[in-house]
């Protein structure tokens, strides 16, 4: 089940929408502030103009009546304006209706140089009050109010429009964002399709790196590298299976031939005995290959769990040299080194070191020499087995530990000895490799030192 909360498209779309909302809201707030300020300026301008007009008329007309009549004329057609003028003896002028003018007069607007806001009834006004001299000799108090409805309506409408705009912008950016993200993720889907097409039989396929956007190049490179490694180990596995089939088939084939030929006519009892004995040898060989394969398979799956006991290396190697030395009559095997101990499984390590030793013996010419050297290297013990004789070629040095690799054709054994040695050493968290030491080929194993050196 897909969890949509983790969808990149959804998350990016929401982020785009949120961003659009924030930007538009900020813009809206800025615009409505600016518009508001502009309206206030316009109103103030208007109010100052009207005051100047009233002052002008008052300075010309010689009577209050004439003043009222002329001002009424001048103000005709002015909507949303309330004017009240009071002389010392009472109201001189009320505009546009006596009720509105009296309501304004009752509001007791203080004198001031800037307009103020005032609510009258259900409308809002900007108001100013001023005292001035008149031509007829009376001081008059003028209060004027400008209806703001016209402006607030405009601002309200602007806000409504902005909300719609924000909503639309959010929706639009979300949709466009989703489309863009989908489009942007196209290479990822291509990769997924490419990956989906790759099966065990087509591990050689790779995702083309040229067509991929730079942001994904690293991923594609890593993915292709993984495919490379998979291909390599898969190849090794299938080579191994083929080799295994071959290794098992060959003895079974010869067993079958031998038995069939022998059974094809009556023979002397000695011949049957020979056949059975020869068969027995092949069975033993088969059983050994299978046991070795099982051990390697176990090691591959991490099931080879060594016991951990301290093992003194000198006596262990002495025993191995005494035993396997029987195979090397004309070879001088020398054991040198320090009295150190490793932590490990006796049976397994005897087998690993023994296999490496046997390998060295097989590759040492008559009158050659083998040196087994034991020394501590950091917190590891190194067992190095060097033999004279033909050096192993550099490319072969990497393959010697592979299964069924026999460097010289015709050598006996299952071809699993060094592979087993490697598996055992690795199971001990050690390392094993081969190097050249002067003219000699030298195999070396490093195994964790036991805590504290043992002297026996």
């Amino acid at each position, binding site marked *: 089940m897909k969890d949509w909360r983790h969808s990149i498209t959804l998350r990016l779309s929401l982020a785009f929408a949120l961003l659009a909302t924030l930007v538009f809201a900020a813009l809206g707030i800025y615009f409505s502030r600016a518009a508001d300020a502009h309206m206030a300026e316009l109103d103030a301008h208007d109010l100052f103009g009207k005051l100047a007009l009233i002052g002008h008329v008052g300075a010309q007309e010689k009577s209050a009546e004439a003043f009222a009549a002329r001002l009424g004329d001048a103000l005709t057609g002015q909507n949303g304006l309330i004017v009240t003028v009071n002389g010392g003896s009472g109201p001189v002028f009320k505009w546009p209706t006596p009720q509105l003018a009296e309501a304004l007069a009752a509001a007791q607007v203080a004198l001031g140089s800037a307009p103020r806001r005032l609510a009258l009834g259900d409308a809002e006004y900007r108001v100013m009050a001023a005292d001035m001299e008149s031509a007829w000799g009376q001081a008059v108090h003028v209060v004027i109010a400008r209806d703001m409805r016209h402006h607030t309506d405009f601002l309200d409408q602007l806000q409504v429009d902005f909300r719609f705009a924000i909503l639309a912008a959010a929706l639009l950016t979300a949709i466009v964002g989703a489309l863009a993200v989908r489009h942007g993720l196209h290479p990822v889907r291509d990769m997924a399709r490419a990956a989906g097409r790759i099966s065990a039989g087509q591990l050689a396929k790779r995702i083309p790196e040229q067509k991929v956007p730079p942001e994904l190049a690293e991923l594609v490179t890593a993915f292709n590298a993984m495919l490379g490694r998979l291909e390599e180990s898969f190849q090794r596995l299938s080579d191994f299976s083929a080799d295994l089939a071959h290794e098992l088939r060959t003895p079974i084939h010869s067993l079958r031939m031998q038995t069939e030929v022998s059974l094809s006519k009556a023979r002397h009892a000695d011949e049957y005995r020979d056949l059975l004995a*020869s068969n*027995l*040898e092949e069975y033993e060989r088969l059983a050994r290959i299978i046991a070795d394969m*099982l051990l390697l398979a176990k090691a591959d799956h991490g099931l080879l769990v060594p*016991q951990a006991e301290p093992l003194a290396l000198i006596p262990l190697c002495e*025993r191995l040299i005494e*035993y396997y030395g029987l*195979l090397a*009559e004309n070879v001088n095997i020398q054991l040198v080194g320090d009295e150190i101990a490793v932590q490990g499984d006796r049976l397994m390590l005897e087998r690993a070191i*023994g296999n490496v030793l046997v390998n060295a013996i097989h590759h040492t010419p008559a009158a050659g020499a083998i040196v087994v050297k034991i020394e501590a290297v950091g917190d590891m013990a190194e067992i190095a087995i060097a033999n004279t004789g033909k050096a192993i070629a550099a490319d072969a040095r990497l393959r010697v530990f592979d299964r069924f690799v026999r460097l010289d054709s015709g050598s006996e054994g299952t071809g699993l000895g060094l592979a087993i040695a490697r598996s055992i050493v690795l199971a001990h968290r050690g390392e094993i490799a081969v190097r050249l030491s002067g003219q000699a080929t030298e195999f070396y194993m490093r195994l964790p030192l036991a805590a504290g050196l043992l002297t026996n």
Partner: protein
Amino acid sequence: MKILIVEDETKTGDYLKQGLGEAGFSADLVRNGLDGMHEGLAGEYDLLILDVNLPGLDGWQVLKALRAAGRDFPVLFLTARDQVEDRVKGLELGADDYLVKPFAFSELLARVRTLLRRGRAREAEGLSLADLELDVLKRRATRAGQRIDLTAKEFALLELFLRRQGEVLARSFIASQVWDMNFDSDTNVVEVAIRRLRAKVDDDFSPKLIHTLRGMGYVMEIR
């Protein structure tokens, strides 16, 4: 000597019975755990050869039941799984030895003889066959009165042969007994060792005492 074999694989069971019979033992064969338990409880046996993987009652249960009932004859168990836990479990339950399939029959025979010999009187220090004599205490070997110089391992090998006269000794058994090499190695070290021993013990003398049984191992006897 009576041996009980509990083994469900038909061929393995039949050949075990035949092989042990021909080696001079009287062997009974049952093919499942329940029969094995009943036979083991009822009969008088000197040794039990027990396959672990059995239908019904498995080998461990049979072993447990027999030991619980006070049957203390030696038990050699056979397992196809080479797992340390299996071996430990078997020995903890009171088995005396084990073999991992596939094994050499001569190896089985050698172990059976070892188990049956256990607890009997200590063997003589002097060992001999024909005119070959071995003084285990003095570490001296002579043939026809002539002193033979042997290395320590050669002496141990010869002693093993003399103690096991007439028995076929598998190479893996020899490697384990003489050199304490307890893993199957595909080298012919034992062959080389026997060749050298023969050169000292048999080559200049008659009759020949060490014989090769191709595919099976070696035997010391007068033929």
